C-alpha cells in the first residue's frame, strides 16, 4: 500500500493574519503544519501499521506531498517526524498566489505519476478554509472520492476502502475500489506527538523538491481575483440593557437582527 498524504504549511492559527496585495501575507507570520493535516498523517500511518508497517524497503509507505515555498520543508519535517517515509514538495515562484484549482492540478499531477493507491487529506486548511481540494483531486485523478471520513477501513487484499462520512447532513457509509481520495475529520484519531527518535530520523529523510517543469504542468493564474480587502473595524461598544421584564425578548430581537435565527 502506497499512501500519499497532502499537507499544507499555514500561518499559525494564533497569528494575526492579514492580506497584502490581494493574497494572504505569509511572510510576517509563524508557519506551521496545518493542524487538520496531522489527522491525515496519523490515519495514513495507522493504515500502513495495521497492514505490515512502513519499514524501509517494505511494500507500505507514506509519502507527504505538498505545494508551497521552500520554507514549507519545516511543516513537512513535522509530518516526517511523526513517521512518514519521505516527501515531495512542489515549489516554484510561478505558483505564488495559486487558488485551489491550480493547487489541485499540481498535486494531482504529482500523485498520478507516483504510483499511489490512496491519497489522504485533512478536510481543510486553517487559512483558506475552502474544503474543496480533496474533491477537486478526486475529480482530476478520476479516483473515488471518500471525504469527511470519521472512520477509514482499508482491505488491501480486496483492493477496497470503506469510510464513515460524517457531516452536518448526517452519517453515510461509503465504499469504493482503490485508488481513492480520502479526507479525514478531526474526530477520527488523536495524532501522535513526534518522538525524539522520530525527530532525529526525519532530518535524514528525503524531501524531493520539484519545480513546475519537473512536475510537468504549467502555472495557471488564479481564476478568482480579489478586488479589495480590509480589516474589519474593532468591536464597537456594545448595547447594554437592564432587564425590566423584557430583557429576554431584547436578547432574542438582537439575535434576529444579527441573523443568528
Amino acid at each position, binding site marked *: 500500500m502506497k499512501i500519499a498524504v497532502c499537507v499544507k504549511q499555514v500561518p499559525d492559527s494564533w497569528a494575526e*493574519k492579514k*492580506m497584502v496585495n490581494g493574497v494572504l501575507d505569509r511572510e510576517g507570520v509563524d508557519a506551521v503544519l496545518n493542524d487538520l493535516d496531522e489527522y491525515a498523517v496519523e490515519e495514513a500511518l495507522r493504515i500502513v501499521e495495521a497492514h505490515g508497517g512502513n519499514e524501509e524497503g517494505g511494500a507500505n509507505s507514506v509519502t507527504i506531498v505538498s505545494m508551497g515555498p521552500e520554507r514549507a520543508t519545516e511543516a513537512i519535517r513535522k509530518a516526517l517526524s511523526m513517521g512518514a517515509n519521505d516527501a515531495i514538495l512542489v515549489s516554484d515562484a510561478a505558483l505564488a498566489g495559486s487558488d485551489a*484549482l491550480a493547487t*489541485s492540478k499540481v498535486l494531482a499531477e504529482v500523485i498520478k505519476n507516483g504510483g499511489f493507491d490512496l491519497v489522504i487529506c485533512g478536510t481543510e486548511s486553517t487559512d483558506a478554509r*475552502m*474544503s*474543496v481540494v*480533496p*474533491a*477537486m483531486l*478526486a*475529480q*482530476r485523478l*478520476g479516483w*473515488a*472520492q471518500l*471525504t469527511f471520513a470519521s472512520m477509514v477501513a482499508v482491505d488491501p487484499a480486496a483492493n477496497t476502502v470503506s469510510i464513515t*462520512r460524517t*457531516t*452536518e*447532513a*448526517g*452519517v*453515510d*457509509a*461509503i*465504499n*469504493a*475500489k482503490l485508488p*481513492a481520495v480520502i479526507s479525514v475529520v*478531526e*474526530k477520527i484519531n488523536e495524532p501522535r506527538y513526534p518522538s525524539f527518535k522520530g525527530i532525529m530520523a526525519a532530518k535524514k529523510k528525503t524531501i524531493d523538491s520539484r519545480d513546475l517543469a519537473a512536475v510537468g504542468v504549467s502555472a495557471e493564474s*488564479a*481564476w*478568482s*481575483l*480579489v*478586488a479589495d*480587502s480590509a*480589516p*474589519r473595524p474593532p*468591536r464597537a461598544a*456594545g*448595547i*447594554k*440593557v*437592564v*432587564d425590566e421584564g423584557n*430583557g*429576554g*425578548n431584547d*436578547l*432574542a*430581537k*438582537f*439575535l434576529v437582527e*444579527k*441573523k*443568528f*435565527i
Partner: protein
Amino acid sequence: MSQVFILGDFAGDKCTKTTAELATAAARSGSVTAIVLAAPGAGATLAATVKHGPIANVLVVESTDFATHGVAAAADAIAQIIAQKSPNALLIASHAYGKEVAGRVAVATESGIITDAVDVAADLTATQLVFGGSTTVHSKVSNGVPIITVRPNSIEADLSDSTPAVENLSLTISDAAKLATTTSSTPPVKGGRPELTEAQVVVSGGRGTNGDFSAVEGFADSLGAAVGASRAATDAGWYPHSHQVGQTGKTVSPQLYVACGISGAIQHRAGMQTSKTIAVVNKDPEAPIFDLADFGVVGDLFAVLPQATQGVVAQKS
C-alpha cells in the same frame, strides 16, 4: 437576459430557506433557475416545495445515482447542465456537500470558484469574511462560469411566493462519477448538541447558574448551540470539565457566544474573546464580561434566558 442557476437545497423532501437565499442573491444578476436533483419519481414532489424566492424555472434531473454516488454524481449532472444551458453563474449552499460539489464542477467546467460568500452583488462580486472574521474580502471569478458557494443565513431571503416553470431533463451520469458507493445514510441526530469547538453558537453558564444549567441548556437547544461552562462552574462540579471554556479548558471562536452568569475573568476571556459576536446575561452590571459584549442584558439569567428561548422558538416557527 442573464441566467443564474442555483442548486436547490433540501432537507429530506423539503426545500430549505437556503434555496430562497441563493435565489435572492442570484436574482440580482439575472433570471433564476433552481436545479433539483432527485431520486426517480421524486422530482415532482421536491420541485413542488420550491415555491419561495425569486425563482423563474426549476430544472429537475432524476437518477438513482444521486443517492448512491453522492457528491460526484451531483457534480457530474451539474457540469452537464452547465454545458447544455450555459448559465452566467452557479450558486450553491456553502456546506460540506455544496462546497465539494462546487469544487468538482469548477474542475469539470474549467471555472473559477469562490467559497463561503456572505453576499453576492449584481456583478457577481462575492463578499467573504476571512481569518476568523477579521477581514472582509471582495473578489470575482475571472474564468469560466463563476461558481460561488454562499453561507446559509448570510443573505436576507426574499420569501415571496413563486410558481416556477418546471422542466424535466434526462441525463446519464458518467461512470467516472460512480466510483464511490453510499451503502447507508443516516440523517443527523436531532436534539444532539454540536461539539463545543466546532459549534457555530455556544451558550455558556458560570457561577450565576448556581449549579442549575437548565436555563442555559434550554436556550442553547433553541439555538442549536453547544453548551460551555466557566471554570468556576466545572470546578464546583456543576458541569463536566470537558465543557470548560477558558485558558485551562477549550478555546472557542464561534459566530455567536452567549455568556450567562459568567463574570469574565481573564481565564475565561482567553477561551472565547475571538468569538464573532458576544452576548452577555449577568446580574452584576459591573461584571468585566460586559466589556466584550456586543449585546448585554443586566438581569437574572433565570428570568432572561427562558424568555429569550421563547422568543427564539417563536421566531423559528
